[in-house]
């Protein structure tokens, strides 16, 4: 099974004709992902290395049966592109790689999609998702992955790679590795991923990589205690990060004591999660639980 993507994934890339979009789309295709279409308004009717390009998502979906969208669109236009993908029948996953989308755009986009559609949104500002041996959608280096039965979910791109690397070098394979992105309003949360990993037959254990800020890890801890029966190993970054120079009091009033690395560690440990101190310990800790 894996989660989010697998061999049934039919990938459409918004911005396929761009340098970055094209580079990563074809890396994904080389890995085995079924890349079926590109969308760039104004370039409809052309193709990139044989992949047809359309002006609109709905046209591309109708012509190619795409079910997954990867968005490589510059920040000023990215939210519009994601909303176009979300409005298209047939698309059930959008992976938004774009970094630097204004926070107000993200908040509107997230809430509108939630209110009007069932599509899953990964990101924005995320490295994507890889189900080793099946498909890769995003910018993750697939060379470091290994097919297997551990699910990895992370807020940080490079720390995801670090975690996957620790697993692979110990010959522990992954079912799916998901980077949910570090922006304030991620489309998919830890909880969403934990729910999918818990339901996935091919996942036996879960690695969760968190960092300071927000309360996503605290929410994950609550969900783990209520629902997750599979073993979970966590690593949290930011113990020595300087206290945020946040202006004003609003943030402090909202978050109370949550948001610090130590608060997240304690919340996760309290529900039975193994929280490691060094990223290098992730492999050992998972091996001990399998």
């Amino acid at each position: 099974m894996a989660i989010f993507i697998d061999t049934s994934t039919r990938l459409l890339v918004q911005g396929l004709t761009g340098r970055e979009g094209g580079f990563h789309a074809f890396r994904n295709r080389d890995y085995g992902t079924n890349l079926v279409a590109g969308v760039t308004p104004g370039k409809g009717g052309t193709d990139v290395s044989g992949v047809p390009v359309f002006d609109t998502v709905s046209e591309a979906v109708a012509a190619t049966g795409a079910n997954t969208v990867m968005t490589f669109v510059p920040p000023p236009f990215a939210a519009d592109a994601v909303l176009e993908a979300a409005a298209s029948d047939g698309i059930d996953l959008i992976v938004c790689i774009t970094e630097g989308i204004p926070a107000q755009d993200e908040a509107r986009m997230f809430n509108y999609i939630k209110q009007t559609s069932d599509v899953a949104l990964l990101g924005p500002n995320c490295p994507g998702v890889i189900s080793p041996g099946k498909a890769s959608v995003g910018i993750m280096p697939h060379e470091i992955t290994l097919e297997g039965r551990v699910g990895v979910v992370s807020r940080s791109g490079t720390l995801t790679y670090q975690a996957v690397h620790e697993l692979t070098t110990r010959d522990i394979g992954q079912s799916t590795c998901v980077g949910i992105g570090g922006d304030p309003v991620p489309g998919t949360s830890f909880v969403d991923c934990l729910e999918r990993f818990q339901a996935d037959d091919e996942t036996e254990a879960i690695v969760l990589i968190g960092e300071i800020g927000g309360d996503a890890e605290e929410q994950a801890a609550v969900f783990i205690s209520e629902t997750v029966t599979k073993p979970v190993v966590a690593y949290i970054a930011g113990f020595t990060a300087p206290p945020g120079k946040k202006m004003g009091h609003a943030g402090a009033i909202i978050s109370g004591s949550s948001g610090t690395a130590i608060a997240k560690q304690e919340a996760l440990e309290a529900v039975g999660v193994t929280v490691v101190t060094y990223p290098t310990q992730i492999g050992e800790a998972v091996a001990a639980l399998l």
Partner: protein
Amino acid sequence: MDLFEYQGKSLFARVGVPVPEGRIATTPAEARSAAQDLGGSVVVKAQVQVGGRGKAGGIKMAADHHEAEALAAEILGMDIKGHTVNSVWVEQATEIAAEWYLSFTLDRGAKRHMAMCSARGGMDIEGVAAEDPDAVVRLHIDPVVGMANWQAMELVYRAKLDRGAARKAAAAVRALYGAFVELDCDLVEVNPLILTADGDVMALDSKVSLDTSAFFRHPDFPAFREAFDEDPLEQMARERGLNFIKLEGSVGIIGNGAGLVMSTLDVVSLVGGAASNFLDVGGGAGADTITNALEVLTKDPTVRSVLINIFGGITRCDLVAQGIVEALAGLDLPWPLVVRLDGTNAVEGRAILADAASDKVIPAATMLEAAEKAVELAGGN
């Protein structure tokens, strides 16, 4: 990007929220002439991008322009929590009938906007919230449609602001929410939002933080920076597109991705060292980015060793290595470099460094090994 009080107030005035009239001054003489312009008694307020000015003595009332000059002389040059006061805002004194608290921010947990309002403004609002949570009313706003009029009224009534001023207060609430959204703010906080003796509603302070990602929509916003007293290292890094924060230790850190850099800081600390900075080169860094990052660190006299920790994804390790080689050639690097490369093109990157055969470059196989070596080379903590 955090604004000075007076800059935030200029944005409030743009959306029609009344603020007291005032002038900026960088010398006591300017403060006197500002006070003279304004007439009557004035308030002299230190402009710093940090809270707690009042308690630190950075806000003083002056009966006339002579006193304003004397107080400005006291306040200018003060150090408030590490921030030097380079300017004061001189504004007309206002008769206050009530002091309220109001803020708008994103509630990351709920993924919606949150308005907070209290009738107990003008004082330690975090203390109020901790001791009597009901005294700070919270209201979620759907970013899709924004704040409705009824929500502004509900906020005002639930917070128990003065009933007679409810409509004026609600109008200010909506205008400030409008600023929060339309001007792409991460935070709009007013403490105090006041009821004047004349029954008007006015913003007496401002804490505004702008979303720099949205500056393409606000071409006039970057100019706010000209008034900042930015750390020269941070400014240099920003101008080169690097995410840099100055810290207290001696190990310079360069990495790709905020999470990995934070993790590197943690590991350096766990092995007994301390980082002199946080420096994230971001995704897809080329050779130039790395030489730029190294050049920034050469300007920091507290650095004694540098740790470069790269896990390549979108970033290619061969380009990173090439950047290091270029820096070795073009810059006079005063410290040893411990380099850990993994991920995309790591093999090629390590080979490039090996070929360069510089005794300044110490390769490391893991983050932990890299941290241990860098801390040792920095001479411990």
